[in-house]
């Protein structure tokens, strides 16, 4: 398994600094296509920064990052972003566009899809996230959970090979959290998308993840299968983290 083209994401010796502050330290991860990864860790551990590096929302100073066998460079950035979808903590729906227009914007402008086909595609995914009846509403008219479901549909309309979720339920009220997590679970399973998800929802991690990555202080502390990760953590820092969140 040395052929990197078989990797969905390949990160080698990645280092990143904010000024003098070393936020990501010697990160090495490789993700196989279809794999579902959950990244957890205390706040400030660099987990969001790491997944934002994958689609170039953050740059890094050292190391190598390849997506689908393409090294991430200024030249390949656009191609990488077309294949990597992202769902944000604060949804980031375009507030001046209707729900349907939010979903058709990128297929029409980036994939050059005809408007009608993009509309059909958007309606398909809006139905999948149970938001079909809201197609003509504007984001400000939706609740947080509804907005996040639209944001998921918007990302899926680009048929991404890889989906990044940056704390997708942290800004939601408790009743909406389960809804959105269930949706992420079923959709990524059906679409066979590679998934990297930053989250604090440990039940979700246990249920969905193929592997759990634990980060602290800008480095990867432990990577393991969820069962082993939760029942038999190895590193002292992991044990401390788990003892504090699983009470």
């Amino acid at each position, binding site marked *: 398994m040395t052929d990197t083209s078989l990797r969905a994401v390949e990160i080698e010796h990645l280092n990143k600094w904010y000024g003098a502050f070393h936020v990501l330290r010697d990160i090495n991860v490789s993700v196989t296509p279809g794999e579902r990864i959950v990244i957890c860790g205390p706040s400030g551990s660099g987990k969001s920064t790491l997944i934002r590096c994958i*689609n*170039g*929302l953050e740059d890094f100073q050292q190391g190598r990052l390849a997506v689908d066998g393409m090294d991430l460079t200024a030249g390949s950035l*656009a191609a990488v*972003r*077309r294949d*990597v*979808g*992202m769902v*944000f903590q*604060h*949804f*980031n*729906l*375009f*507030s*001046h566009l209707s729900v349907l227009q939010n979903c058709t*914007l*990128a297929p029409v*402008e*980036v994939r050059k899809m005809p408007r009608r086909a993009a509309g059909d595609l958007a309606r398909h995914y809006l139905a999948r996230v149970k938001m079909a009846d809201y197609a003509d509403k*504007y*984001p*400000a*008219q939706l609740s947080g959970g509804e907005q996040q479901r639209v944001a998921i549909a*918007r*990302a899926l309309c*680009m048929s991404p090979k890889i989906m*990044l979720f940056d704390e997708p339920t942290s800004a939601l009220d408790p009743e909406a959290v389960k809804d959105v997590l269930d949706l992420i679970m079923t959709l990524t399973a059906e679409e066979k998308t590679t998934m990297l998800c930053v989250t604090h929802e440990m039940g979700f991690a246990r249920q969905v993840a193929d592997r759990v990555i634990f980060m602290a202080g800008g480095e990867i502390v432990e990577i393991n299968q969820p069962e082993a990760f939760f029942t038999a953590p190895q590193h002292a820092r992991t044990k401390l983290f788990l003892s504090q969140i699983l009470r």
Partner: protein
Amino acid sequence: MPAAYVRATPAPVLPPPAATGRSWSGLLRNLVGAPQSLLLTGLVLALIVWLVPELLRYFVFDAVWHGGAAACRAANGACWTFIGQKLPYFVYGSYPPDQRWRVNLVFAIGAGLVIWLLAPRAPARRLGTWAAFLVYPALAFVLLYGWPALGLKRVSSDLWGGMLVTLIVATFGIVVSLPLGVLLALGRRSHLPAVHWASAGFIEFMRGVPMIAVLFMADTMLPLFLPEGFEPDRLVRPLVGVALFASAYMAEVVRGGLQALPKGQSEAGKALGLRYWGIERLIVLPQVLRLTIPAIASTFIGLFKDTTLVATVGIFDFLRTVDSARLDPNWSGPTITTTAYSFAALVYFVCCFGMSRYALGLERRLAARYGRTAG
């Protein structure tokens, strides 16, 4: 008292109580309810009683509505017949009277286009935009300046004046300053050093120099930058000066809006694979321009009033025609000057207030559609 409670019957759903905010008794309480409000109400009433009858007397009852210069000289009120007689000069300046239908035609087409573009739910707005921004300027130029081959006598811009010139300067300024301001604002935020410094330098220079100085520079320096023998028209020079000056202010207004828009909006665009211009054009600018409508309207209103400064480089704008008409020896009289300036003030107020109201209406319409929050 028991701590536990379980609802047995649902709480009733009721209509809201009668409005309390704007009742007469509430108004009365606000005006005279407390000693301070009683005092303020009294002061304001005294001011109204003192000013309003005097204004009414001067501008309505003692004003001259019929009758000539002699009646005005005798009167102790505004001389409206003077305004009526000079109105064509205020509108057209010295444009030859037998050719003024051409100006009227330009006004009529312009008004039609403005209504087409600004009215809510107007049909074929895209076509209207092309007509307004490409066809109309060329058509207006041909009509106003003339084209002897088409039988339109040449009318030198030296003869243009009054409201015609004010509207030309203001419209050109508005139409150029918005797109140029947007480009300058984007340029100032650019990561490319050359673009950043050029934009920031231009903006700061224009904002650091009085408009009159800009007009003088445009008048004297513009010909120096252009090839030998190509003398820009006397009216074109201040037109360029006003547009560049307004662009700098517009750029800062737009930049403020760009900073107010949450970063997540452009990040979401990037994550979907859009490139820089796609993100700016489709995501950022539509939201920023809506956010900045009040400030943009203020800039336009300021620009409209600043057009009066073109008089300093010898252009006969509306205010300049009013100013010169009041010195007409045939109409010399004690109230002519007050009448002339009051009329000018009224005209500027109507124009600026109209812009202000339109902007407010647009703001409300957009807020109703998209809601108030961004991302």
